[in-house]
């Protein structure tokens, strides 16, 4: 035991000696959570809309003013002919063109019907859908005002909505749990896999192997410091997201911390597993970074909701541990539910740990080739 403590001390010294890595270890999570809490957002804001107004009457002016005053759109160019649409949409600023047909106002009064056409830039489908939806809603709203009392009869069913869990509709509720998950898995898996392969590559692993320390003690001793440091990271991130973004912790804090420890453990064992496969640091880095970063970002429900994906991806993402941890954090922090709601996900994480460690033990070579 004493020997083991000595070894852990040595590992801590290794980490603290490298001041730059230490800064990165604590600086990166903080900076990233701040950056993404503020920057990454799917809301429609300041999208530029241009107008092709072939009618130029009071009604069309009112509608276009209403669109621009909504806060979602900024006014782009005023176009003169259909040919201009192609020109502005091909450029990079305008996201949609609103076309009012000729004699729009007159037709609306005399025939009771007039057409607004929205031409949106489909090369960004998400933007295009949001833009057309919002503009349609604004026009419909105007239509209702215009119709006045006659239309109030049309409002027979009046739905009221309550946005549960996130009444102020903050984007951070979606992104912050994802960022925590991403950062933890990358830091833990990357750090451990590098630190172990480093010993292999430099040949110092031999020195350790001939020492009286048992192989499992070596691995444990390597992982323990990172476990503690990552846990401090989690706490920093939680404090930041609480103070800066007002992200609540509605459920039990103890449960949240316990689950985080479990997740860190899982990421660390993944790192160990990678290190048993990789022959040198470069390979370890390549696997953990290139192989894990994109799938974690894209397939775990971090940015793109899993529900939207084709069915097979349910199976693919089932193999990715971050997916379960995101569910766990969202449940505990935002929904405020207890362990009963996340026991399945917790069990799966435990399973991942068991498999990763089992495979690592099987793969771990005490002798050098």
């Amino acid at each position, binding site marked *: 035991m004493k020997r083991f403590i000595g070894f852990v001390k040595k590992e801590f010294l290794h980490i603290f000696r490298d001041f*730059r*890595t230490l800064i*990165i270890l604590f600086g990166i999570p903080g900076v990233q959570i701040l950056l993404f809490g*503020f*920057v*990454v*957002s799917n*809301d*429609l804001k*300041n999208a530029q809309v241009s107008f092709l107004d072939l009618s130029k009457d009071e009604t069309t002016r009112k*509608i276009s003013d209403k669109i621009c005053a909504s806060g979602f759109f900024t006014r782009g160019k005023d176009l003169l002919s259909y040919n201009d649409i192609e020109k502005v*949409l091909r450029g*990079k600023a305008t996201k949609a063109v609103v076309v009012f047909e000729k004699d729009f106002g007159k037709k609306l009064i005399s025939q*009771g019907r007039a*057409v*607004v056409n*929205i*031409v*949106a830039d*489909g*090369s*960004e489908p998400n*933007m*295009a*859908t949001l833009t*057309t939806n919002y503009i349609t809603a604004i026009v419909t709203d*105007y*239509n209702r005002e215009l119709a006045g009392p006659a*239309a109030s*009869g*049309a*409002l*027979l*069913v*009046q*739905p*009221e909505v309550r*946005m*549960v*869990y996130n009444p102020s509709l903050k984007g951070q*509720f*979606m992104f912050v749990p994802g960022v925590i998950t991403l950062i933890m898995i990358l830091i833990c898996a990357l750090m451990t896999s*590098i630190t172990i392969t480093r010993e292999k590559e430099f040949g110092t692993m031999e020195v350790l192997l001939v020492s009286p320390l048992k192989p499992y003690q070596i691995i444990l001793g390597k992982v323990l410091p990172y476990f503690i440091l990552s846990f401090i990271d989690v706490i920093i991130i939680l404090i930041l997201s609480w103070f800066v973004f007002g992200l609540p912790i509605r459920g039990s804090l103890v449960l949240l911390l316990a689950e985080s420890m479990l997740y860190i453990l899982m990421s660390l064992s993944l790192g160990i597993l990678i290190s048993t496969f990789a022959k*040198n*640091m470069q*390979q370890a880095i*390549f696997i953990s970074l290139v*192989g894990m*970063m*994109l*799938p974690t970002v*894209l*397939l775990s429900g971090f940015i*793109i*909701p899993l529900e*939207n994906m084709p069915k097979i991806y349910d199976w693919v993402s089932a193999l990715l541990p971050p997916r379960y941890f995101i569910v766990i954090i969202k*449940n505990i922090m*935002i929904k405020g*539910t207890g362990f009963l*709601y996340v026991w399945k996900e917790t069990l799966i994480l435990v399973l991942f740990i068991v498999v990763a460690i089992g495979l690592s033990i099987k793969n771990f070579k005490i002798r050098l080739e």
Partner: protein
Amino acid sequence: MRTILYLIRKEFIQIFRDKFIGKAIFGIPIIQMLILVPAVTFEIRNVRLCIVDKDLSVESRQLISQLEGSTFFRIKASTFSEEEANHLMDKGKSDMIIQIPSGFGKDLGLGRSASLMVMANAINAVNAQLSWAYLNGVIRDYNLNIIAKNAGVAAVSGIPQIQVTNRYWYNELLNYKFYMLPGVLGILVLAIGFVLAGLNLVKEKEIGTIEQINVTPVKKYQFIIAKMVPFLLIGLVDMTVGLLFGKLIFHMPFEGNIALLFLCSSIFLVAVLGFALFLSTFSSTQQQYMFTAFFFMIVFILMSGVFTPLDSMPAWAQKINVVNPVAYVMRINRMVLLKGSAIRDISSDIYALVIIASAFTFLAVNRYRKTA
């Protein structure tokens, strides 16, 4: 010139000597592209509803069947207890609860307005808002039906109607694959260049082989160029393969000039490689480099507008993006491939990329010291 060629040869031998890296360079990007591109979609389907019908009238049933008929909604559960509905939402089994109060049908029959309670899971705020908008659409239709039934068709047509139609250009069916493919392609090329090139230089430092180069008459710029060229070529090959796969498997349209695309990608790669080599001069171990690289890569990618619209970012973030090469290349890739934009449409982006690329390369050459 000959010196550079020899150095480049040396680099290639070094890269491909490691069999794993040799395979990974081409294998990982392609597998990832095939898996990731179809996954990304923000299109909302199957919003799972939980209905609490306390009225059980003809009218409420009609509303429910109208919801069932819509492509966006799927009725996941019907219950009479609010508690159970809340419980289902807590468990993540439903996205929206629609509660029809008792007296709903009676009110409508008497021509009064009836209320309807909706609760949406808003953790994903955008999805919640869109689902709410769709729901409103269904209810609007439902209302019109009732008016038509009560008062005849004339009453409806008396109200002036502004009809809103829409069309999507460049991607009429809003195929998300066409949107994601250029983006994922850019990211993969970035990752390969950024990770491998930087690590390559730091590895020489860490192992000490850089000293052997330092004592030769090889010039600083020659050394940096020789480090860049192999990865530039690998990146371009990756991109070619990616584009081919995109064409064959995802039927990606190539509206614009492919040569222009390659030109822009090359400038982009030079910028990325220059930055990677510049960063690597600050690190003495691969571990350090990896963490700095990881930090910049995530910042570059998430700020580039590949997943979320640039316009939604705050003004200061858009200012930072001026030096983010990924933001330019994402826009260029999409504009050239989907919109068929020509050189004059993207000239300002190209100038910016050229400036960034030369600046980073200059910095890399300048920061590299031949002394130990």
